[in-house]
């Protein structure tokens, strides 16, 4: 074999430590971790980055990224990140939060960090369920979805509707960049990676608050196989949580390789309030209406 022609096309990002993660099989946290680490490598910012982990499944994120990390109280990561960033304005600060953390107990903190235009980046992993505590209803649990605390399925009459955080936060004047992507299949994963890169670039250029919401899976608590879970993201989550760019401040497109002028953009323009998850109630496997 002529090794001169061999080149490395795929390896562990330097920003990701060579350790085994605690995540369940089929969980997409691993994918998201890798994407963030790749972006830290690509932008060359690993050694000036400070991460803030949330409470929930991603509480151990600090064990996996090779950068400085703090672990915040439940929901308070945006406040803690604000403190870090304000005293280290020349460093890159990001939070890594789940839906229970960001959209329930930490709603006030994320809303106000966003509305201040806090120059931090938020990686928001939305799998519609509380994972760490064993699968209870989250603010993002879809209507009709069974969880351990909505055993008959989420009844919007008594339990309310899922919160669309990207849409909600994009109504504020503070944020510079708010998008929703999904990590259920390779094309979407590539688009998610580009969005994460843009979000960090927004911070590098001190343009303000950036957040990438990532529709993810929780096979164990959804009571589905990993592949079934990926299908649920496509067929049930995306209709309720449409993918797209919800807030892109002037100037962001110029610094981003997501820009339509540089590449073909997938047809995923946001349509807010379009879907009410028509598939729920239909007999599918797992917690989804069995």
């Amino acid at each position, binding site marked *: 074999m002529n090794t001169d022609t061999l080149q490395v096309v795929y390896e562990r990002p330097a920003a990701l430590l060579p350790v085994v993660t605690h995540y369940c099989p089929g969980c997409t946290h691993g994918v998201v971790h890798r994407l963030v680490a790749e972006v830290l490598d690509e932008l060359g910012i690993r050694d000036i980055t400070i991460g803030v982990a949330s409470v929930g499944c991603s509480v151990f994120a600090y064990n996996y990224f090779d950068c400085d990390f703090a*672990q915040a109280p439940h929901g308070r990561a945006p406040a803690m990140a604000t403190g870090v960033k304000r005293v280290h304005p020349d460093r890159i600060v990001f939070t890594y939060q789940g839906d229970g953390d960001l959209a329930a107990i930490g709603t006030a903190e994320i809303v106000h960090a966003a509305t201040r235009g806090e120059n931090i980046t938020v990686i928001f992993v939305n799998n519609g369920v509380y994972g760490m505590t064993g699968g209870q209803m989250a603010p993002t649990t879809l209507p009709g979805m069974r969880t351990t605390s909505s055993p008959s399925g989420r009844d919007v009459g008594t339990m309310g509707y899922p919160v669309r955080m990207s849409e909600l936060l994009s109504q504020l004047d503070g944020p510079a960049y708010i998008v929703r992507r999904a990590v259920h299949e390779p094309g979407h994963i590539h688009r998610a990676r580009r969005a994460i890169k843009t979000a960090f670039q927004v911070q590098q250029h001190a343009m303000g608050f950036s957040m990438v919401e990532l529709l993810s899976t929780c096979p164990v608590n959804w009571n589905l196989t990993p592949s079934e879970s990926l299908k649920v993201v496509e067929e049930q989550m995306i209709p309720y949580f449409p993918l797209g760019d919800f807030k892109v401040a002037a100037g962001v497109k110029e610094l981003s390789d997501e820009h339509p002028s540089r590449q073909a953009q997938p047809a995923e323009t946001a349509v807010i309030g379009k879907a009410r998850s028509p598939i729920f109630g239909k007999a599918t496997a797992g917690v989804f209406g069995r």
Partner: protein
Amino acid sequence: MTKELWKGNEAIAEAAVRGGLEAYFGYPITPQTELLEYLAKRMPGLKRVFLQAESELAAINMVYGAAAGGARAMTSSSSPGFSLMQEGLSYIAASNVPCVLVDMMRGGPGLGNILPTQGDYFQLTKGGGHGDYHPLVLAPASVQEAADLTYGAFELAERYRTIVIIAADGNIGQMMEPVDMPPMRAIPRRDRGWELSGARNRPRRIISSLYLQGEELERLNQRLQATMAEIETREVRYAESQTADADLLVVAFGSAARIAQSAIKDARARGAKVGLFRPITLWPFPTDRLRALAQTIKQVLVVELNAGQMVQDVRLAVGAAASVEFFGRMGGVVPMPDEVLARIVSAMPSASFDRDHPWAIAR
């Protein structure tokens, strides 16, 4: 140095600035709001961080973040707001991150009122958040002392990597007194070996309070306990006056001690031998000194602006060596010196008083 007239809240704010405060995060609440307002004006000019948070929860976690980043960080609040900060304080305690808080106590429980009390004593000294920890609690009895204690609070916090709380009340915050303000101190620019600043040219650092293994968390707790034991050995502070010949000892802290001091002056003028013992550190409590005093003084009167909280620590210190009585007013009612004097009179044998003294005792 020339003394200047300072309002308590503003004196604390300026002393914090001069003591090296780099980042302040706070939320308005009476009776400490002037502290926040003062720093809103003062900090930007010095290119230091001032940020009004959306809540006390956010404020304390901003302090957590800034302090984890190595900055001298502070917040201030009053009782209901201070209650909201307990979650953050427990995390900060576990993470060994130094920071300074000011609690300008007001009437409670609940929303209570905006009048001065000392009702947070339990919460301050026993660890208001979950788990085993004690912040270092400093209780000033004057505006000058509030400024002095705040000035030194950051170095104290950093020495032990602990929380330091300035525990005052609405009296101290709102009154004006002459203050000899300490000089501006340079902010130390150093890597303390634990702070988060980006892992350039060094291994990454983690600040976390999560320890899933019991033995691991026990080790953390043992370290915390060892630090607290060291603080108990080295940092106990108190003031006493006229204790050498006293038959009765009044024990009071903060503004209650000021009132007690007036009552003691009146009692002394009537021939009664009364002394004052004033804890300055509420935690660590000056147990040893009080225990020693109790061997010669048979009666103790504890005066507090609450239903009797510090009196428990006094009883633990005194034991059976002396009788301990308590006098307190609640709800923000501040007793007059005459009320305290009346309690002193009723606690002491009437023989020790000059009943013909022209200063009447209001009963």
